[in-house]
């Protein structure tokens, strides 16, 4: 009966009642879609780590079937992952099939990923194809971390130099040969680092999303409270009221969650195009599995229902409780103290423990930031109201003091992400790379062989028609570096021709430039920047959705007051300016402030130069974000005009 009545009330709520339900539905849809993204991105990185694990060999204690080594080669500004494989025992190795290949490669056989095969066809042979001659096959997607990845699998005999030589001079540039019992491998340290960063980014996104999603149940709260109080007055029991509220919130939230999931599925191909860690994504990676999907689809309506019940307390206590607006209790400073306590304990919590504990500590810190946030908004409101000279500023300030949580919901994501975005956004990856020096290819060789290797290098380069100076530089470790200087005017094509000519010069080792060596560090910084931009974009999306939906629901909740003010001659522009300031003031102070502080803190690291592209991206993100927030608020202007045009406003 309750459900039937709830459904009838929901359906029969009239145009504005339905608009309220639509706003809740929209808020839930937006938060579900973004929540799915925040969750799915973790599974996406896990899928990448798992798919790339086979290239990270785990030495076998016993029962070895193959020898595996991995290294990185380079073409232009792209990385090629090269896996050297040798079967130890053909029969035993038959079961050790590398992903994306039907069998282990025979000695001398080369298998290329589709993108590498395509690139090898496109470029002149002396720049790439000659390094991987006569490919025997194309690797399947299972072998690849991302769709356009450049991968080569090279078969060797077990006693081939590449399979017996020591590893590369730099551990970051590959793994030396190891006997393996299978080709399962283990996720690389890099992939684990990406997963850890992703977890942090997820926490950054999830906390504001949960706050926003939970708040969806309280949109147009005044209207619903009036209706439920009326039901209490005619004799509905508290239990019935709670059940009806939960039913209404859950029905709408479930519809919103399904809509959000559908929207996310539709957006997945676009999200898969975001390049991180070298390339874009398989669409299947960014789609959450059935379990996470079910958890989100069940969790969001549950959260909304719970939030609705919490918001109902006043109605349940007294049917008359909502007939009069009560002054909300002031924000307590203890919220800020809680944040300080967690921040003080944070180094202890995160010292030498697992990434899971760190994530929990981080989540706790963010929750405390969320506790302290409304207090700060309230403070901003008091300052705004205290210093306001015009009615719009006064109204905005008082409204912030009255309901700081609502404003915090809108700006929390940007405030949380802003610092990182500001810090990372302007750092230039090239500032950390050894740009500016003439390119030279370096390969390490045992000191005793260095001169001979240098001689071979000269012969190969001469044969390839590449002008270069080859010399040997000693190092303290006993190894020597064979340095091939290509001159200041060497273009990328010349460098690639030299790379091709020097391929196999030292078995299992790749000649690299200093830029190649630092590529992974700069790639990581670039990826953190991309990730930060994505998180900041999500935060702005939450802010935009929240600003739009909160503005519309606030108009519906306060339509009688707005209408009466308008009748008394208050210009629409004043009400509009107040609504705009209500969002923009805390967004500017907290979001903009966080970004500026981040930029300020990054300044000492910008000695090597500021990233213009990063600055433009950050600037564009901020401009579009602020514009979006203002635009979203402005969308409800026709609604404000419509409700204030009513000459006889009455509460619902």
């Amino acid at each position, binding site marked *: 009966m309750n459900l039937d009545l709830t459904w009838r009330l929901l359906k029969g709520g009239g145009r504005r009642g339905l608009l309220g339900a639509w706003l809740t539905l929209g808020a839930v849809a937006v938060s579900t879609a973004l929540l799915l993204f925040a969750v799915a991105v973790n599974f996406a990185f896990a899928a990448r780590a798992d798919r790339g694990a086979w290239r990270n060999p785990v030495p076998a204690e016993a029962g070895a079937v193959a020898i595996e080594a991995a290294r990185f080669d380079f073409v232009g500004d792209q990385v090629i992952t090269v896996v050297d494989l040798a079967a130890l025992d053909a029969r035993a190795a038959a079961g050790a099939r590398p992903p994306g290949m039907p069998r282990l490669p025979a000695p001398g056989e080369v298998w290329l990923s589709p993108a590498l095969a395509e690139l090898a066809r496109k470029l002149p042979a002396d720049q790439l194809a000659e390094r991987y001659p006569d490919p025997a096959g194309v690797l399947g997607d299972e072998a690849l971390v991302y769709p356009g990845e450049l991968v080569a699998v090279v078969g060797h005999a077990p006693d081939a130099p590449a399979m017996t030589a020591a590893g590369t001079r730099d551990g970051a540039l590959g793994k030396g040969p190891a006997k393996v019992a299978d080709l399962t491998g283990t996720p690389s340290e890099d992939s684990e680092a990406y997963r850890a960063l992703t977890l942090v980014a997820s926490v950054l996104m999830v906390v504001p999303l949960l706050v926003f999603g939970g708040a969806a149940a309280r949109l147009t709260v005044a209207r619903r409270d009036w209706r439920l109080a009326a039901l209490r007055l005619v004799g509905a029991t508290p239990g019935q009221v709670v059940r009806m509220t939960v039913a209404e919130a859950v029905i709408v939230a479930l519809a919103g969650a399904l809509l959000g999931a559908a929207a996310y599925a539709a957006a997945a191909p676009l999200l898969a195009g975001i390049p991180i860690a070298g390339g874009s994504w398989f669409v299947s990676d960014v789609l959450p599995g059935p379990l996470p999907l079910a958890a989100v689809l069940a969790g969001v309506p549950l959260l909304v229902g719970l939030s609705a019940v919490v918001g109902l307390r006043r109605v349940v206590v007294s049917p008359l409780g909502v007939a*009069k*607006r*009560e*002054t909300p209790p002031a924000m307590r400073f203890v919220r800020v103290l809680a944040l300080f306590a967690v921040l003080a304990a944070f180094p202890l919590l995160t010292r030498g423990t697992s990434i899971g504990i760190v994530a929990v500590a981080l989540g706790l810190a963010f929750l405390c930031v969320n506790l302290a946030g409304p207090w700060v908004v309230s403070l901003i409101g008091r300052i705004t109201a205290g210093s*306001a*000279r*015009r*009615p719009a500023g*006064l*109204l905005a300030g*008082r*409204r912030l*003091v*009255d*309901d700081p949580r609502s404003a915090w919901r809108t700006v929390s994501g940007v405030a949380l992400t802003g610092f990182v975005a500001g810090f990372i956004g302007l750092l230039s990856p090239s500032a950390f790379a050894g740009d500016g020096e003439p390119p030279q290819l370096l390969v390490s060789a045992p000191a005793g062989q260095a001169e001979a290797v240098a001689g071979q290098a000269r012969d190969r380069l001469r044969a390839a028609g590449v002008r270069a100076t080859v010399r040997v530089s000693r190092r303290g470790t006993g190894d020597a570096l064979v340095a091939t200087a290509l001159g200041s005017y060497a273009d990328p094509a010349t460098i690639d021709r030299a790379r091709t000519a020097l391929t196999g010069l030292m078995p299992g080792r790749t000649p690299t430039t200093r830029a190649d060596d630092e590529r992974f560090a700069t790639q990581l910084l670039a990826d953190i920047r991309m990730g930060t931009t994505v998180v900041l974009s999500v935060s702005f999306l939450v802010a935009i959705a929240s600003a739009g939906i909160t503005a519309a629901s606030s108009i519906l909740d306060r339509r*009688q*007051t707005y209408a*009466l*003010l*308008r*009748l*008394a*001659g*208050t*210009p629409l522009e*004043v009400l509009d300016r107040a609504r705009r300031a209500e969002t923009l003031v805390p967004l500017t102070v907290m979001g903009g402030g966080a970004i500026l502080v981040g930029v300020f803190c990054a300044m000492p690291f910008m000695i090597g130069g500021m990233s213009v592209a990063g600055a433009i991206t950050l600037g564009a993100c901020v401009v579009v974000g602020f514009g979006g927030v203002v635009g979203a608020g402005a969308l409800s202007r026709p609604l404000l005009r419509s409700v204030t045009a009513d*000459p*006889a*406003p009455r*509460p619902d």
Partner: protein
Amino acid sequence: MDSRPIRQARHPANLEAMNDVLVGRALTKRFGQTVALGGVDITIGAAEAVAIMGPSGSGKSTLLHCLAGIMKPDGGEVSLLGRRIDTMRERERSALRRTRFGFVFQFGQLLPELPAEENVALPLMLGGVPRTQAVRQAREWFAPLGLHTMETRRPGELSGGQAQRVAIARALVSRPAVVFADEPTGALDQRTGHDTMRLLVEATRHNGASLIVVTHDQNVASWCDRTVEVRDGLLLVPGGVGA
């Protein structure tokens, strides 16, 4: 008493004498097929308090809205101190309502997040008065209306009667020519309503403003200098003569 609804005769030539503050002439208004006003003439004198009574749907609120420039009549004209307001654009009428009129509604007119004194000061600030001065002027109204110590309370912390007195202060703070009150005691108990009406009439009169009160309540109407009754969109006057 003969209470036949009649269409009023044209007012004599001295209708818009300086003593007449607000004049409505031959006002008509329709909502679809429904005739809300069927040609009403009404004159409000300086510092005069007039009650408009009538059953629900009789057209009394529509008459108030037309006189206050909230609504444009379909026909007829409305003048404030000799100046036509029905021909003004919305922006001008809005400014007029802000500066020359005051309003007291049944409830819900105070901004819940503003303290009482800022609710009262708001019309002054909207008119460009600096905030400190506006708040100072607003405070002056509190003691005479029995609201001493209520200045910093918010509407949620006031009783219904206190909130209505704050609304009265807000209606009068910008020294309007006319105060419009739509069921000002409708949400109050009889005693509080009585007190509120007394304060409304006294404060309005003391301020030299005219008062137009729309009400169902004969007790409320009795506070006014005269009463006009509206029925089916027409004025109902004793003896069949329009006021």
